[in-house]
């Protein structure tokens, strides 16, 4: 019943938080000797750049809330980061990670 603007949680916010956290973990595990690390870093840069664009221009110029933005571009770029990271053996995609790795201990 609350208007969307007042609801603190949205799928879009989760997507942004999860993608940032995932990138941090990837960067923590990445070492420059891994073949393909440059491509992975390029993917991460694109993802972060999309997040900046959407958050700065999207919220300012469009509807004013993260919840209502169309974040399909961000979702696609995040998938690309996850696939490349998995391919390089650095980190599984979130969908395939063992459940205990998704909790802070």
């Amino acid at each position: 019943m609350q208007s969307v603007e007042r609801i603190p949680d949205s799928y879009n916010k989760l997507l942004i938080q999860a993608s940032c956290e995932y990138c941090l973990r990837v960067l923590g595990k990445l070492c420059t000797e891994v073949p393909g690390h440059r491509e992975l870093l390029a993917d991460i840069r694109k993802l972060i750049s999309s997040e900046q664009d959407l958050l700065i221009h999207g919220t300012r110029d469009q509807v004013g809330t993260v919840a209502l933005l169309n974040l399909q571009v961000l979702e696609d770029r995040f998938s690309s980061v996850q696939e490349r990271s998995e391919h390089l053996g650095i980190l599984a995609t979130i969908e395939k990670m063992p459940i205990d790795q998704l909790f802070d201990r």
Partner: protein
Amino acid sequence: MRDLLAYDGTIYDANCLVYYVFYIQESDSVGNSVIIEGPYTGRARRITEILLAKRKKIRTLRVAWEEAEKVTISSALKEAIRDGSIQQRLGLKGKPTSMFEYRLAGRLRAELAGLKRQVWLLIEPAFVPDPARISALKKVYEAFCLDPEKQKLVPPGKGDPSFVDLSLVLFSSATKLPLLTNDRELYNFSTDLKTMGFCELIKAFPHVDLHGA
């Protein structure tokens, strides 16, 4: 339930849609498969089963569907995590990361996408409420908030109904179908809104008598 069965169909709000799909399979800490179910899923499924058994259609608006995808999934998930029920089912005591919430939200979105393919669910893409009716309905709610007796029916911390809620109420009026909702600010005023011609019927999700079919 009888009042809902008197109609050809029932309109679901975003909450009802998410309650229905909140049933996902996960692996617990030792790899066993467990089912994670929302607190209202059983009720939502039972109501839907009864309606479908009587060949009734379920309807909703595109804006309500989008609200379910973008907002309600996540807020329902956060609520279940906050009360600890999901962690308990999975046998994990730590703090869930946002990656965990995203994974479950993704599963719920997939379930919701599956619901979209059901032939008994009709998502109305074209209904646009009359702006004058929306304004009139907003004024009615402003009046409710100024009336000491009506004020008591507005749950604490809740503001005016959102555009999606108002659209669903007016969709009920336009289609002459009942709206099923868990929003007290809507169903508490069912009689007033019906008398004023703003809706056909607003049925409270928690008050549906599952044995009165």
